[in-house]
């Protein structure tokens, strides 16, 4: 008899059936423990990861399109303004200003992200009873590979006997995944500093659970601690700067808060607080 956590039971079942089909055996022959629990879990993790990667891929393609559209207009209008200013000996200021006015209107690109945030808030949330620690351990499993690759040691300090909360497991896992990947990335530059990631949960007052992701990276400039949650604000060259803004939308949709502070002696701490109170009141149904 195989024992797998309920989270991956469906995936394990799928793995089992796939194996039956591939080997052309009758199902009864699988009654014995052909796969260890560990193997099943690994397969389940892999499938969950593949599924998440596919979803993220679709999501980023569609966000990419939505952003490329206004961005394309902004770039062309800015270039046109420069052309008007560079034209011969008499720059055409009024035409350049008209082109620049179109650039300024392009600020609406940030509407894309606001809409996305609104979408997350509007989407009918799953009101699972969920164990925050279990959800976090699922994410730690997904990020193990990245941590090893970047020589980051990951520790968890999970509070015991935490009450269950009601919320959307996948969304909250996405928040944790995003914060964890950010932390690993922050510690990736080879500056010789320590590379420790600590994920902790604790029961906090009043009636909430506090999740903290601490890294020992270079930390965040104090003056920027609030800005990093703004859409399109980023310190990374290859980033759109929307991850944290979406994370904050998700946490707020759960009636919680997400913020960043400095870690001591170095690094950053991202914390989110989730209320234990019944989510029925928080997720008031949009009538």
């Amino acid at each position, binding site marked *: 008899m195989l024992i797998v956590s309920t989270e991956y039971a469906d995936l394990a079942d799928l793995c089992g059936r796939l194996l039956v089909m591939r080997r052309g055996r009758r199902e009864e022959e699988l009654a014995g423990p052909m796969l260890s629990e560990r193997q099943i879990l690994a397969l389940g993790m892999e499938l969950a990861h593949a599924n998440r990667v596919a979803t993220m891929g679709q999501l980023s393609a569609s966000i990419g399109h939505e952003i490329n559209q206004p961005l*394309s*207009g902004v*770039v*062309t*209008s800015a270039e046109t303004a420069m052309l008007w200013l560079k034209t011969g000996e008499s720059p055409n200021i009024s035409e350049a200003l008209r082109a620049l006015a179109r650039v300024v209107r392009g600020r*609406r690109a940030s509407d894309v992200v606001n809409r996305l945030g609104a979408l997350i808030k509007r989407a009918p949330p799953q009101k699972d009873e969920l164990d925050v620690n279990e959800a976090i351990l699922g994410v730690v499993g997904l990020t193990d590979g990245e941590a090893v690759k970047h020589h980051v040691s990951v520790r968890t300090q999970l509070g015991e006997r935490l009450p269950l909360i009601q919320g959307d497991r996948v969304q909250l896992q996405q928040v944790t995944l995003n914060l964890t990947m950010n932390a690993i990335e922050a510690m990736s530059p080879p500056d010789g500093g320590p590379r420790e990631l600590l994920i902790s949960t604790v029961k906090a007052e009043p009636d909430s659970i506090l999740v903290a992701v601490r890294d020992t990276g270079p930390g965040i400039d104090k003056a920027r601690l609030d800005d990093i949650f703004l859409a399109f604000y980023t310190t990374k060259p290859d980033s759109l700067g929307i991850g944290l803004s979406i994370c904050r939308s998700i946490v707020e949709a759960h009636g919680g808060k997400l913020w960043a502070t400095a870690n001591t002696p170095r690094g950053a701490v991202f914390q989110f607080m989730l209320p234990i109170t019944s989510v029925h009141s928080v997720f008031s149904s949009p009538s």
Partner: protein
Amino acid sequence: MPSKMKPLIAIVDDDESVRDAIAGLMKWLGFEVHTFVSAVEFLASPDIGVSSCVITDAQMPQMTGIELYKRMRELGHAIPTIMITAYPNEAARDHALAAGVLCYLSKPFDKDTLIDCVRSAVNREPAKGQRC
């Protein structure tokens, strides 16, 4: 320029910011510009008979850029066409170029490439009245 009419460029895009931005650039190049929010609107306009170049978005509701191009050909208009996409895709690109589209660009596009494409479109424009 009293004797010579400016070439007319038709821009078809459902996104206002892209439409206006390209129109602005075409104006700097010295062309006459008309903009359309959909392929259907352009097909119904008298401009279809007099445009020197069509710059169209690839993905639009109702009728796509490539459908517009094929429809123009069916109607006998061999207007040099530049297609711009926000979903770059090799297969779609090959298909469009094989069908006779002059240039296939991805958003955000390089202005110099677009300018080169438009200039070559205007230069290769068939004489008025010529049908393909």
